[in-house]
C-alpha cells in the first residue's frame, strides 16, 4: 500500500465557529455528532478518479482541509499535513464515531459504493449546507475527470476561484447582535425507545418520494414540505405514546434552520440553528390537522430574523462570557459532556433536518440520479431524519439506534396512505 503523501508545513489555523464549539466536547468513544451527505451518479464510481477529484477540490475548501487540535482554552483547526483523506468502500454502519487521530486526521470520511459517493462529516466542520456544496463540487470534479463537460453554479463551486473570506467566516460572530437572549426549551419529552443496536451500529432507512407529488400534498394542506413531514413525525410519536398507556409527556420535533436564507453569507462552516416545535397531549386529543396547524403556525412565527438573532445571541453569550473564556479546555469539555448527558436529547423526541433542494448545473443533472442526507444517530432518539431533494426525487432518511422499526413504518405508511409513492432503501438485513 502506498504511503499517504504529506504536503508542506503551511501554518494555517482557524477558530471553531460558535456552533462547532460544543461538538468536540460531546465526542465520546462510542458516539460522535456526525452526519452524511451522498450523491448517486448514473455510473459506477472509480475510486482512483474519486481520490484525484478529492485532491483537486480540497484547496477550494480550506476549512475542510484541517485537523482538530487542543488549545489551552479552546479547540482549533490547523491545516492538515496530509494531502487528502483515504477514499474507502462504503460500510454498513455510516456515521460511526470520529476519532481525531484516525483517517489521516481529517474530520470527514469519503466512501463509494456502486454509483454513490458518500461523505460523513463531523459536525464541528460544517453543517448540511456546507456538506452539500462540498459533495456536489467533488462529484462535479469527478465527472470532469471522466471527460464530461460540467459547469459551475448552484451547489458546485468554481475550483479556479480562490476561497473567499465569506466562505470561511464564523457568521454567528458577525450576525449575533440581538439585545435579547432567547430562552431554551427545557422540559423533558417523550421518547420512543426499545432494544438498542450494539455500539457503533445504526439502522438507516431512506424513503424516496417524487418531489412534485409531495409538494402538491403539502400545499393541499397549506403547508411546506418541512411543516408537513414534521407534523407526520410528531403525529406518529403522539399516537405511539397514546398506545403505550402511560403518563403523557410532551412530544417535540427539533428542526434545524439554515440561516443563510435570512443572512447574507456564503460561509461553508456551521450556520444553522435548531428550534423545537412541541405539543402537550395532556391538553387534550389532537388530530393530524390540528398538529399540522400548530407546527405550521409555530415554524412561521419563529422563522424570522429577530427570533433567530435572539437565539444566536444566546448561544454567543456563552462564548463571549469572560469566565467561560478563561476556563481551561478540559473543564469546558467536562461541563459540555455533563450538560449533554443530562439534557442533550432529553428535550427532543425526534429531529427533522430538511436541506431543501440541491441545485446543480444544468449539464451535471443528467449524470446525477439523486441525493441523500442523513442526520447522525442519536444517543436517545430513535428517529433522526435528514431530508433533501435533488432533481425530482425527495429523499428522507431515518437514522435509528433501536432495533425496532415501528416509527419508520408508521411514518412511511402514513405517506403511502396519503397517496404518495415511497421507495425504500435500507441497510437492515
Amino acid at each position, binding site marked *: 500500500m502506498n504511503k499517504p503523501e504529506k504536503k508542506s508545513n503551511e501554518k494555517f489555523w482557524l477558530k471553531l465557529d460558535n456552533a462547532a464549539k460544543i461538538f468536540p466536547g460531546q465526542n465520546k*468513544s*462510542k458516539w460522535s455528532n456526525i452526519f452524511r451527505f451522498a450523491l448517486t451518479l448514473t455510473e459506477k464510481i472509480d475510486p482512483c478518479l474519486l481520490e484525484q477529484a478529492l485532491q483537486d477540490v480540497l484547496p477550494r475548501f480550506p476549512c475542510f482541509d484541517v485537523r482538530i487540535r487542543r488549545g489551552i482554552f479552546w479547540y482549533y483547526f490547523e491545516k492538515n499535513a496530509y494531502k487528502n483523506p483515504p477514499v474507502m*468502500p*462504503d*460500510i*454498513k*454502519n*455510516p456515521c*460511526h*464515531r470520529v*476519532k481525531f487521530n*484516525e483517517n489521516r486526521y481529517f474530520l470527514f470520511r469519503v466512501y463509494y*459504493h*456502486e454509483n454513490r459517493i458518500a461523505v460523513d462529516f463531523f459536525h464541528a466542520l460544517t453543517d448540511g449546507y456546507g456538506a452539500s456544496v462540498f459533495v456536489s463540487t467533488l462529484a462535479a470534479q469527478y465527472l470532469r475527470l471522466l471527460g464530461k463537460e460540467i459547469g459551475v453554479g448552484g451547489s458546485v463551486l468554481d475550483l479556479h476561484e480562490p476561497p473567499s473570506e465569506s466562505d470561511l467566516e464564523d457568521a454567528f460572530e458577525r450576525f449575533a447582535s440581538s439585545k435579547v437572549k432567547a430562552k431554551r426549551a427545557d422540559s423533558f419529552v417523550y421518547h420512543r425507545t426499545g432494544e438498542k443496536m450494539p*455500539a*457503533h*451500529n445504526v439502522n*438507516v*432507512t*431512506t*424513503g424516496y418520494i417524487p418531489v412534485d407529488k409531495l409538494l402538491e400534498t403539502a400545499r393541499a394542506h397549506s403547508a411546506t414540505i418541512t411543516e408537513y413531514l414534521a407534523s407526520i413525525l410528531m403525529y406518529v410519536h403522539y399516537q405511539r405514546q397514546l398506545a403505550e398507556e*402511560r*403518563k403523557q409527556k410532551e412530544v417535540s420535533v427539533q428542526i434545524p434552520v439554515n440561516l443563510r436564507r435570512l443572512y447574507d453569507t456564503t460561509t461553508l462552516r456551521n450556520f444553522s440553528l435548531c428550534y423545537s416545535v412541541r405539543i402537550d397531549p395532556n391538553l387534550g386529543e389532537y388530530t393530524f390537522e390540528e398538529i399540522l396547524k400548530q407546527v405550521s403556525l409555530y415554524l412561521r412565527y419563529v422563522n424570522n430574523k429577530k427570533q433567530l438573532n435572539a437565539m444566536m445571541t444566546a448561544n454567543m453569550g456563552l462564548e463571549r462570557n469572560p469566565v467561560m473564556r478563561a476556563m481551561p479546555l478540559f473543564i469546558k469539555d467536562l461541563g459540555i459532556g455533563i450538560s449533554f448527558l443530562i439534557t442533550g436529547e432529553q428535550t427532543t423526541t425526534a429531529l427533522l433536518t430538511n436541506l431543501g433542494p440541491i441545485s446543480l448545473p444544468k449539464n451535471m443533472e443528467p449524470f446525477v440520479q439523486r441525493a441523500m442526507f442523513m442526520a447522525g444517530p442519536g444517543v436517545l432518539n430513535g428517529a433522526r431524519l435528514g431530508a433533501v431533494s435533488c432533481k425530482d426525487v425527495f429523499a428522507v432518511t431515518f437514522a435509528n439506534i433501536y432495533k425496532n*422499526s415501528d416509527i*419508520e*413504518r408508521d411514518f*412511511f*405508511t402514513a405517506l*403511502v*396512505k396519503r397517496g404518495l*409513492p*415511497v*421507495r*425504500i*432503501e*435500507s*441497510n*437492515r438485513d
Partner: protein
Amino acid sequence: MSYCVNCGVELDKSAKKCALCATPVVNPNEKNEEHPQAPPYSSTLVIPKGVSRKYVAFIISMVILIPNIVCVIVNLLLPHTGSWSVYVVASSALVWFLFVFPSLMSRSHPYILLSVDTVTSLLYIYIFYALNKQEGWFSRVAVPLVALFSLICLFMVKWLAKERDGVHIAMVVLAEIALFSVFTDAVVNYFYVTGRLIFVSIPVSVSCFALIGFFVFVAKNKRFRAWLSQKFFV
C-alpha cells in the same frame, strides 16, 4: 420492482424482505435475473477500536507503582520511623488486585476474580494482624467474615447468570444484608465475649425483612406495581 404487501412501499430490487416490517419479498417475475442488483449498502461493518484496556491497566499500574517504590526507599533510608511503607504497599496491592487486575483479562472470569479477591483481602488483613501482634482475631473474626462475604458474592454471580427481575434482586440483596449483619454481630460478640450474641444487627435485619415484605407485596400485586411505575416513572 417489488412492493411490500403489508406496508405498500416499493422495495429495493435487492431486498429479500421489507425493511419496515420484515415481510418476505415474493416476486416470481424477478427470481431469475441475470444481473441481480447490488444491495444499497455494503455488508462490511466497521466497529471502531476502543481504548485498549490492557494499555489503561498498564498506565494505572505505573501510576500506583512509582509512589510505592518511593515510599519503600524512603522507609529503608529512615528505618527508625517504623515499617509504615508495608501498609502503603499492601493497600496499593489490594487496590491493584481489586480494580486493575480484571482489566488484564480478555474475557470476564468471575469465579477466578472472586477467588483472587478473597485471597488478596485475607492476605491484606493478615498483614495488619501480623504487624500489630494481636492474637486470635484473624482466624476467629476476619476469616469467617471474609469467607461469608465471598460465599454471598459467589451465590450472586451464579444466581445473576440468568436474567432476574429488579424486585427479586432487591429482595435477595436485602436478605443477604440481614444474614451478613447477624453473622457479623454473632462472630464479634462471641470473640469479645460480650454476653449477648445478637444485638446491633436486630434493627438492621428487622428493617431488611420489613422491606422484603414490601417487595413481596409489590411482586405479587400487579395493580400496585402498575400504580408505582406510573407514579415514579422518570
